[in-house]
């Protein structure tokens, strides 16, 4: 199933000017385990989607919210700079959202 369809909330936002943080909320805590166990949801797989190094990718499960958080560097831009395409970082969760989980 596509991650975007499994999640009830999928959002991205700046965490400061240099990081993007992507939050996914699920209906059940069991979905957190399912997603974390998916081959398409490793830090290596996510790094490839965003043209990053594996060590750049932070994955945090937050079970009190039945959520997973992925935090990534913004790449070559900082928020609001001349080359930025998304000053709030609010629309950066695709292609992660398309991953099969």
């Amino acid at each position, binding site marked *: 199933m596509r991650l975007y369809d499994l999640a009830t909330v999928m959002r991205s936002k700046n*965490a400061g*000017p240099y990081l993007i943080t992507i939050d996914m909320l699920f209906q059940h805590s069991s979905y957190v385990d399912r997603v974390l166990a998916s081959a398409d949801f490793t830090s290596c797989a996510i790094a490839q989607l965003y043209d990053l190094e594996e060590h750049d990718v932070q994955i945090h499960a937050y079970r*009190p*919210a039945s*959520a997973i958080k992925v935090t990534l560097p913004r790449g070559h831009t900082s*928020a*609001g700079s001349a080359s930025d395409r*998304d000053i709030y970082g609010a629309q950066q969760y695709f*292609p992660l959202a*398309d991953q099969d989980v």
Partner: protein
Amino acid sequence: MSEDRIRYLSPCGLLGYGYPISNLKTAFDAGLDFVGVDAGSVDPGPYYLAEGANFVGISQVKRDLEPLLIECVNAQVPLIIGTAGGAGARPHVETLVNLTEQIAKERRLRFHLAVIWADIDAGVVLDQLRAGTLSPCGGAGSATSEEITSCKHIVGQMGIGPITEALVAGADVVIAGRCCDTAVFAALPIARGFDPGLAFHAAKIAECGTLCAVPGGANDSLLCTIYSDHFEVIPLSKDRRCTPQSVAAHSLYEQATPAALHEPEGVVDLRSCTFKQESSRCVSVTGAQFIPAKQPTIKVEGSILEGYRAICVGGIRDPLTIRNLDTIEAKVRTAIGRSAGQKDFSIRFLYYGRDGVMGDLEPLRRNQPHEVGVVIDVVAESQQRANSVISLARSTLLHQHFPGRKSTAGNVAFPFSPSDLEGGPVYRFALYHLLEVENASSLFVAEHREVDA
């Protein structure tokens, strides 16, 4: 107010975003120890800090501030406003102070005002750069001394200390420059002996108004009550409710990790929190752990000029043009390079409908949409230069030939005349770093004055 609880109102997520005025009466009837408002963020970008410009229009700020001032002064409930004007540097604070005094005069209000400046001298930052104690924050690179001296404004994020000191000194209203988002709401609870972990976590939830509720919104009010072993949050509007997941999710908002919310005084770990539905719209929270820092640190922010922007916006409907966008762009760039003279500008073409949002990362960029919106964006050393380059780019794109072209009268539909728009100065963050300090309050100067209509 009883000692075993402290209750406060967060009227909205940002001063000027608006809130239902009826919420104020309900909140004051419930009994408040203070009212806090976050007035800014680094989120809207580096422009507002450098330019000294207000993020939210002054009439919107006045509309939100006036009822708060009146109710708080009349009820003798402290009002605390942090990160004045959106970015919290001297011009922003001055604007908000002037507005406050204007309202006081119009409404015949008397109160003790504390103004806490957050401006940091470049020399302080340079000293720490040389001493090797200036460290980058949250993915920032290293800052150069040239960048530091080029920042028009440098602000430090004050923590709870300066706000507490101002309240202890008798302030009824506190207007602070750049503040940690949590400091506004955590200062008084911690000063009154409530658990810092709970106080900081509650502050993090409250500072965005009802973004923690369902449905969420930054233009509505949240009531927060802290007890000795938990805190409770409830939206004031009956058509919103907090749920355990909505409050837990908001604990993640704009944070890199739930394991560490950074404050000048230390770190808050939210991993062991529990969230419980107390009543149909109210949630109680426990479990935040505060770990004090060995040495306090102050985050400093500064932005520098990149250039001046000019843009034009147009639509493309011709399928051959859409299929050949990359070829066309390359040809346009070559032509501009030939005609524009020296390379004192940058230019980019954003194609909405193809890959405008994600650029090279867009996996679907090979799809052929029936329509593309193109934004040409030029940033140059002067506004005049940006204007002339955008003009050249626009006319070249409109008439650019490519193999197989049928649309020989023009490649782009421009929706306005003039089609070129001035964007003004463009900034980027250059400072997002930590200073090591002996005392978390020492960099922030407070002024006290009696405001008397």
